[in-house]
């Protein structure tokens, strides 16, 4: 009902050692929206995620979540505001099992008193574990006991990261290249999955280089180049923007017809 | 049983390995002699041995094992004060006689009912040394004390016994100077001593600590005497100290020349160690005391007529322990040895290291017991 956007980024800037990595970037994302954050390598997309989740502290600008200023909220508490993320370089916990990695994602929700000390697994049965297993099953990930996450194939690990973020039941999901390492068919499955997530009310902010996914999943795109916003508008038109074409997509995308591009 | 079983806790591994092994050899000699001569009450003695690895907790394990599992009548050992302190509690709890070997910490047996030591008091021995020093023409107006602060016996000797005795003997003595057991460089301590350049430096510490202090003293040009009591009175210091050790005065509780038996033991002891590849210059008084410990037990066992039978175990243990009260014993360390409290009164031999030899400088008979 509210007209306040779920996420609003206002004049965000950060520099490292004199290098302006994010330069006065603003955009908003309404509740339930699907926004793609794209741009060439090193444009600052991951840096934006790091600013949103509090890994970095911005030099200037503000971030609002649901209208509330979260600039001073410590990174640890941001997930409690309903914001969960995945990482570009997979960061699963190597010594936790697959299910346990997902259960870690539920941590921010365990707010009932004594929650920290409630047993998680008594003879393998418990709500948290069951829920995590169900989520995994939904992604089609089968769990073998004792399987080391670090030995899993890249694509599977990427999916587990996504499930871990989902386990926090976020309002806003930040995904950093979710389709990296997936082939065409797998990317389609992922799209369908994200569609369902989005339909259930979760807002998506996706960094992705797979334009097929970007265009069929997201309605709007923000394009960064050298830390500046160079485009903000519907995904359908992004590849007609000359600036974007030159900096990001390359000639191939402008030449080809849309149909073959989706593949 | 076929044999009379005696427990024997030794340190044959860990940092006390070498000294523990000497004591072990002394035990074996005594047992073999006794058994060759027909044993005790018609039965051979059997030493049941347990290695404590120089660890007090293992000494306690050993005591319990020997007492509860092996049904020994009494226990010889453990070796060090640290081990004895823990194991003596077990002896008292199970009411079994225990005679530690080299544990010379002051007051160790004060609260113990079943622990007895064939060990002479450090302060008494040092007093004898001072008496010999006073009687000699060695200058001794001023003195400094160096002690190993993290070693129980040395600490109490250096901070309490030595200063008191020296003041009593009219020697002007400075504040005791601590060194740490593990530290290898004592140049800073010695530099402060050299500033005062005393006639005598008293060292309270085990041979390796004493050796460091003495070498450093000589290096910095000290020319007076170094004295110490029985803590480092090991015949091997002659070699360990080397030429720097010349003139050192110590007090030993054993003199091989005292009786034929003593010298026989010393010779046998050295040859057995040589066979094991251990090079020793003479028996340490703790080795002699270990040897005598076996004979003391033999005397007690003969006196009480123990049989070593399993069904009489408890009463025979009690008899043995009770027989220690008022006992008088002849051994290689001395004759008519008696006990005050639970510690023996032993003679002292003031030893001087001269010309690379372990020579007798003076001697003092054992004190009388009342």
């Amino acid at each position, binding site marked *: 009902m509210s007209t306040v956007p779920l996420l609003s980024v206002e004049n965000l800037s950060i520099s490292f050692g004199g290098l302006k990595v994010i330069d006065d970037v603003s955009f908003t994302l309404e509740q339930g929206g699907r926004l793609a954050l*794209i*741009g*060439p390598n090193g444009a600052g997309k991951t840096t934006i995620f790091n600013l949103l989740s509090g890994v970095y502290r911005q030099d200037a600008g503000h971030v609002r979540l649901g209208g509330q200023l979260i600039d001073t909220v410590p990174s640890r508490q941001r997930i409690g505001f309903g914001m969960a993320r995945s990482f570009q*370089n997979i960061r699963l916990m190597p010594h936790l099992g697959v299910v346990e990695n997902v259960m870690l994602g539920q941590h921010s929700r365990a707010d009932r008193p004594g929650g920290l000390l409630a047993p998680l697994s008594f003879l393998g049965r418990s709500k948290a574990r069951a829920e995590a297993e169900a989520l995994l099953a939904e992604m089609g990930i089968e769990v073998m006991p004792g399987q080391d996450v670090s030995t899993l194939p890249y694509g599977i690990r990427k999916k587990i990261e996504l499930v871990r973020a989902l386990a926090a039941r976020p309002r806003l999901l930040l995904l950093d290249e979710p389709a990296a390492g997936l*082939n065409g068919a797998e990317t389609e499955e992922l799209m369908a999955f994200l569609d369902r997530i989005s339909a259930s009310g979760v807002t998506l902010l996706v960094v992705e280089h797979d334009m097929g996914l970007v265009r069929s999943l997201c309605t709007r795109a923000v394009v960064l180049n050298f830390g500046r916003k160079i485009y903000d508008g519907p995904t359908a038109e992004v590849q007609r923007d000359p600036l974007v074409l030159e900096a990001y997509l*390359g000639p191939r995308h402008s030449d080809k017809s849309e149909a073959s591009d989706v593949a | 049983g076929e044999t009379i079983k005696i427990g024997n806790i030794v340190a044959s591994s860990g940092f006390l390995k070498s000294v523990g092994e000497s004591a072990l050899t002394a035990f074996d000699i005594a047992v073999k002699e006794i058994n060759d001569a027909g044993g005790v009450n018609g039965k051979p003695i059997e030493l049941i041995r347990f290695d404590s690895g120089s660890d007090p907790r293992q000494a306690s394990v050993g005591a319990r094992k020997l007492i509860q599992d092996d049904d020994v009548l009494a226990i010889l050992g453990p070796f060090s004060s640290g081990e004895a302190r823990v194991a003596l509690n077990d002896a008292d709890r199970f009411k079994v006689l225990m005679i530690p070997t080299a544990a010379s910490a002051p007051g160790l047996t004060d609260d113990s009912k079943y622990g007895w030591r064939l060990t002479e008091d450090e302060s008494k021995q040092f007093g004898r040394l001072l008496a010999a020093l006073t009687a000699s023409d060695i200058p001794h107006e001023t003195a400094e004390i160096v002690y190993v602060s993290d070693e129980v016996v040395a600490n109490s000797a250096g901070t309490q016994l030595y200063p008191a005795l020296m003041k009593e003997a009219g020697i002007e003595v400075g504040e005791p100077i601590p060194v740490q057991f593990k530290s290898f460089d004592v140049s800073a301590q010695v530099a402060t001593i050299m500033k005062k350049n005393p006639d005598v430096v008293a060292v309270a510490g085990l041979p390796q600590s004493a050796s460091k202090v003495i070498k450093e003293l000589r290096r910095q040009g000290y020319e007076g005497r170094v004295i110490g009591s029985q803590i480092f009175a090991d015949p091997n210091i002659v070699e360990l100290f080397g030429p720097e050790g010349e003139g050192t005065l110590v007090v030993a509780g054993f003199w091989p020349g005292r009786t034929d038996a003593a010298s026989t033991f010393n010779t046998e002891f050295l040859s057995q160690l040589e066979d094991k590849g251990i090079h020793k210059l003479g028996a340490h008084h703790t080795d002699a005391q270990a040897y005598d410990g076996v004979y003391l037990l033999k005397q007690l066992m003969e006196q009480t007529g123990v049989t070593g039978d399993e069904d009489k175990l408890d009463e025979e243990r009690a008899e043995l322990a009770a027989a220690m009260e008022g006992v008088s014993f002849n051994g290689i360390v001395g004759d008519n040895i008696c006990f005050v409290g639970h510690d023996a009164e032993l003679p002292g031999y003031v030893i001087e290291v001269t010309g690379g030899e372990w020579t007798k400088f003076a001697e003092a008979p054992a004190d009388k017991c009342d």
Partner: protein
Amino acid sequence: MLLEVRDLEVTYGRTRAVQGVSFGVAQGEIVTVLGANGAGKTSLLRALHGARKPQGGQILFDGEDMTTLTPAARVARGMALVPEGRQIFVSMTVEENLLMGGYMRRDDAVHGDLAAIYDRFPNLAERRHMKATVLSGGEQQMLALGRALVSRPRLIMLDEPSLGLSPLFVEKLFDLIRELNRDGISILLVEQNTHMALEVAARGVVLELGREMLSGPAAELAANPHLAEAYLGAA
């Protein structure tokens, strides 16, 4: 054949990641290996490069049996790997990373090669003295690529090189692959970007659960309906 693989087996405990795979890469040829997640592509490359001992089979490079040689020996003979997950040295600078690529080289021309790589990857040139840890994901991928090139390989094995690269840069990457190939370097390409991989490659091998499912000329594979369904996604 420059590289010849015969009945290769790679297992991890009970998991049989590669089961009896055979194929070859001719001098100056581009061969692509396709397959779903967990098909065993990475395991195959690890075995080819010597990071993982194969449990069976044979690897021939230039007619020489490589099966028991160390990775160093393989690098010395001209094999290079751009590994999955980039594996760059994060505490070293960009330039040091590139120099590490020339570890096995004994000549002095390395610095000249670096210049060529900086030309190709301007992002790296700008950040040559920065610690590699601050690079963006795509920049790290470029670094891993550049590093492999510094060793002047005869055969370069790429494990999902387009991962994390922007579309424009993916184009450039495939141009680069063609260019390298024109210079006579053989390429073994593992890719999830099936379309482009088949476009650039002469031949392809498709793995499924560690087994060789299909293989043949790339054009044939691209036309294969089964493959389209399994890997390309509905168009």
